[in-house]
């Protein structure tokens, strides 16, 4: 028998412990076959026999064992339990694990993970806010099921009435100079997850759901591509008009976009310049080599290596410069016909950025996307994911009120994201942010959840960085990707948006709004005095 020493890795160091009931196990091997992390194995144990005939003799017993390793360790995804016909195996959280200590101590490296922030020390502001202003006698509520509602929101630069360039030509009203491009879209945007961060099947399911919602259901939802390249055939198809193309600091995939331009029959829905992301603010994109599959290499034009996008767009040193270079060039790229927006991580400095953008002398800033700290990530250093960032709610509110104080609210539409739907109701979170001043919201994590993500905000799975996603969503191993059912995921995404649509109306109706209540913070109350003060909404108890 091998000697056991203190300074080896032990089962108790690991975050999850496999609980295995030998009496229920039929040794079918499915749990091991299903485990994408190679965290369990079949093994033969030597035992003393208790049977009458062999009493005292050594016998060999086939069992399932947990692998004790810093690399192949159980993430608690639960696939073994899902596939076991007898309920003989499951992963149980180890409350006293030492993994984060041992990993750093042994590997001399920062601990990397994907998925969500797991500390949640900030709590959820949105859960402490209720829709407290209900129309009854003051003005009539609407019928959520049967009345008609206008849920569209502007995406693109909105000019004040006195800045509109209208004139008369004879009796006709004409534009005397070109207005900035503006699109009326659904207030939920499928948030930017790149090809590479998610699997090709997941990305295609999102694209199909987007196209279906637009063309069959008449819901003008938009999908942001993320920055990992876009299949050329999508660029050349009519569906590109539902796609917001992202450009981040890595500029991945833009070669193919530019090459496709002469053959594009439709303009894209918009351009999103990604400066930062809520889950790892101040950090660039990160795609570990294990996820850089052959097609990802091709579409991005890169070798199989860790892909680190720089934390900032190289060559930009100030807000003014970012406006001049990124906004002007991106507007110019599509001949000033496509709205260009920018996404930053929510931060103490967000309002300064927004204030600067509001000065926009060229009318080219088409939207401001703020991403809060509870957002998800394909891969981040744990230290960034759990310890950096700013909650979305107060920062969104700050930006909105900054515009209000200048009488300029709505001129640059605000979109908010980061942990929406975390406590079960995406529509409620979206609605509250809209009342606080958002023109709309964006989400990636909800899409993952809908697709069958098994992860949680308390450390379950969160292995999006490995390429071994057991659900095939963030996987880049062909056999894992093929676990994902594109048709079902697309249908479920559609269904979830239809449900969200009903729920948004269910909240608009009682406050008597048939159009989106952007900035209608009078509709909200909070049961927390600090939140009341900070967000300038009514306190109720």
């Amino acid at each position: 028998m091998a000697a056991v020493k203190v300074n080896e890795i032990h089962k108790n160091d690991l975050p999850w412990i496999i609980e295995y009931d030998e009496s229920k196990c039929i040794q079918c091997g499915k749990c091991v076959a299903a485990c994408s992390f190679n965290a369990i194995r079949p093994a033969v144990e030597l035992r003393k026999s208790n049977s009458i005939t062999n009493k005292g003799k050594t016998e060999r017993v086939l069992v399932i064992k947990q692998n004790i390793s810093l690399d192949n360790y159980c993430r608690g995804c639960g696939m073994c339990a899902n596939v076991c016909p007898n309920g003989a195996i499951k992963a149980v959280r180890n409350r006293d694990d030492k993994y984060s200590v041992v990993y750093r101590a042994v590997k001399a490296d920062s601990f990397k993970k994907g998925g969500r922030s797991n500390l949640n020390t900030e709590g959820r502001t949105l859960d402490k806010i209720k829709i407290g202003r209900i129309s009854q006698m003051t003005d009539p509520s609407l019928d959520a099921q049967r009345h008609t509602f206008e849920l569209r929101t502007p995406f693109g630069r909105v000019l004040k009435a006195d800045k509109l360039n209208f004139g008369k030509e004879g009796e006709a009203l004409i534009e005397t100079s070109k207005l900035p491009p503006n699109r009326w879209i659904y207030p939920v945007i499928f948030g930017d997850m790149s090809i590479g961060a998610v699997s090709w099947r997941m990305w295609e399911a999102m694209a199909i759901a987007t196209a279906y919602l637009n063309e069959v259901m008449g819901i003008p939802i938009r999908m942001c591509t993320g920055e990992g390249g876009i299949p050329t055939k999508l660029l050349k198809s009519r569906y590109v008009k539902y796609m917001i193309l992202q450009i981040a600091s890595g500029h991945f995939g833009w070669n193919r976009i530019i090459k496709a331009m002469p053959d594009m029959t439709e303009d894209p829905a918009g351009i999103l310049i990604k400066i930062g992301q809520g889950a790892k603010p101040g950090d660039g994109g990160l795609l570990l080599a294990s996820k850089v599959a052959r097609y990802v290499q091709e579409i991005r034009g890169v070798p199989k290596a860790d892909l680190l996008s720089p934390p900032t767009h190289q060559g930009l040193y100030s807000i003014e410069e970012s406006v001049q270079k990124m906004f002007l060039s991106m507007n110019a790229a599509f001949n000033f016909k496509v709205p260009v927006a920018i996404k930053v991580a929510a931060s103490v400095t967000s309002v300064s950025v927004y204030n600067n953008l509001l000065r926009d002398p060229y009318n080219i800033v088409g939207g401001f996307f703020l991403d809060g700290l509870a957002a998800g990530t394909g891969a981040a250093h744990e230290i960034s994911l759990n310890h950096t960032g700013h909650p979305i709610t107060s920062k969104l509110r700050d930006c909105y009120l900054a515009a209000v104080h200048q009488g300029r609210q709505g001129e640059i539409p605000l979109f908010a994201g980061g942990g929406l739907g975390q406590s079960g109701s995406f529509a409620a979170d979206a609605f509250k942010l809209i009342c606080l001043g958002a023109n709309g919201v964006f989400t990636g994590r909800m899409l993952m959840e809908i697709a069958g993500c098994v992860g949680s905000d308390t450390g379950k799975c969160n292995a999006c960085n490995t390429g071994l996603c057991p659900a095939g969503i963030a996987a880049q191993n062909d056999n894992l990707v093929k676990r994902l059912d594109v048709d079902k995921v697309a249908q479920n995404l559609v269904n979830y948006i239809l449900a969200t649509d009903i729920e948004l109306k269910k909240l608009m109706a009682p406050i008597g709004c048939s159009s989106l209540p952007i900035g209608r913070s009078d509709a909200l109350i909070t049961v927390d005095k600090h939140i009341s003060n900070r967000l300038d909404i009514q306190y109720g108890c």
Partner: protein
Amino acid sequence: MTCKIKTLNNNNRMSTQELLQTISRKIEEGVTDFEIDACGQHDIGGSCWSKEGKPLKFTITNPGQRVGAMAMDGTKIVVEGSAPADVGWLNSGGEIVVKGDGGDTSAHCAAGGKIYIGGRVGTRSGALMKHDPKFEPPEFWVLKNTGSFSFEFMSGGIAVVCGDGCGELPSVLGNRSCVGMVGGVVYVRGKVEGLANCVEKVKLDKLDKDFLKSGMELFLEKIGRLELKDELLDFSKWVKIIPLPKELKEKKISVKEFKEKEWFKEGLFGDLVEDDGAVYELAQTGDGRLRKPVWDEKLCVGCDLCLSNCPQKAVIKEDKTYKSVDEKCIGCGICSAVCPREAWRMV
């Protein structure tokens, strides 16, 4: 005997309460026929009855809102001229004739009786009309047009909008009428635009035409416009609006059908990855395995433990050669685990 009530005397207006209580008292005294020169008093002609079950008749000028509200079987009301909002609200059996226009929400929630309007009616008219199958359905006849949002949430009864003289209007039913309509029928003559998407316009059948023929003459007689009969009974301009059956309302192609018909034939990534669309199981066989066993002849001692332990019966032995059948093997590694000599390796 007709009881005449004048509600304005020397600039003193009789209150609604005083008027309605006077009417009650007179009915108890046996009066059944009233001529009321009203001055905007509300609810005239509604919720009153004679103990002997004798029919009551009201002839009213200048009524206030809700004339004939909650009118009962046996009550007949004639308004000379127009009436403001809520004519026949919750009408349960009365016959209400307004020779001029009706206001907003005329026939709102009517579930019985007949309401005849000799002009136009306002917004949300006919909303929430109902039909209790134990009684005759309510009828609501309008000579001209309705305002927007009419017949909202209608769930039973019959409405007839004749569109007389409405040729210039973009829609005889205004905009967004029939929202949430789940039952009943609205007959309309003339242009109809902006209907809710939960209803459909269909052609009249014989039963519809018979109903309109028999009802139209009575209606026109009541409002004193019999001369319009031939014109209004030209069925070429009529349609019938009924709620769409639930299955039609939800008839949209599924996402799967959309993908098959509209989406890229080889899939969005067809030229980048090999993917036939098959969905793998968690424990998949063949090429879909996460790990595969490889046998090394040099290390094998031929103990057959792999053969007897393989849960999928995937390991086979031919002469002294062992093989794992790809179509059966799920890659669990039990062959490798039980092998005393590591002749099976998982790769």
